[in-house]
């Protein structure tokens, strides 16, 4: 049991760590892009939106950390 718990702790640190917002963002990017492409059938929209969400997500996370440090 101890080792199972340690394994899940390791997995959590590996994928989530101290940036849960990026973990959620990764899943959100997939969910939003998948939904858009299968409902709106708009390739062009997802081609623009997918990388934009990724970049804005990273910048958002950086600004969040900056605000935390400056508090």
């Amino acid at each position, binding site marked *: 049991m101890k080792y199972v718990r340690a394994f899940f702790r390791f997995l959590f640190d590996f*994928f989530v760590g101290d940036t849960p917002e*990026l973990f959620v963002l*990764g899943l959100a*990017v997939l969910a939003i892009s998948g939904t858009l492409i299968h409902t709106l059938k708009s390739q062009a929209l997802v*081609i623009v939106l997918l990388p934009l969400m990724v970049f804005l997500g*990273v910048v958002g996370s950086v600004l969040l950390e*900056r605000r935390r440090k400056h508090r």
Partner: protein
Amino acid sequence: MTALSSSGVIALFATVFLASAVEMVEALTIVVAVGVTKGWRSAVEGVSVALLALAALVALFGPALARIPLSSLRIVVGTVLLIFGMQWWRKAILRSIGLKAKHDEDAIFAETVEELKKSLTSTRDATAFVMAFKGVFLEGVEVVVTVITLGSSAHRLGVAATAAGVAVVLVAVVGAVVARQLSNVPENAMKMVVGIMMAAYGTFWIGEGIGLHWPGQDLALLAFAAIYGVLTWLVVASLAPHRPSGTEAP
């Protein structure tokens, strides 16, 4: 699905090589600290057992991945790479704008040596063995994940494994020669490139996995990396604290 073009293969090789080199520099710092402080026997034993454990991981998960349908594999791998890539990318930006301390191999070396000095000395040192094992295994897992995810989704596992192998050998050889000058490696710049490349791969594979047809096919990968790189440069330039001209960065 078409195989990667030559530019795609070069990008794949470069990404896996850089990611593996960065991880191996971190592992080597710990192994050298263990070897110098407690003798090389325990360090070599720890490294050997860690390499065996990593080989077992590859043997266990490598063939299983080949049975997963490619589009599902690309969605899973793309999401994992995107999350990893964004984490590396974010940390590299934070270091560039001075909000996070740079990874200091000298400090890690000194810290490891201090920790080891506290343990009892004997011919076969358990603490030294465990530290060498942990250092190589934990950093090695990241290399294995990078090789398996990038290699299998691009159908170029051989290229990815070769890139990682070259990086490991090169870092080991350079490490053996310069041993304690690992702090000279431009680690943050390498991590920035790896983070951006991983995020670019993640973006690309997620798109491919959900049925998107990227313009320019796998050239889109390089376009993402270039766009993310330029935008990152702008972000770093605008967020970095301004220093009076003539003064040096800390």
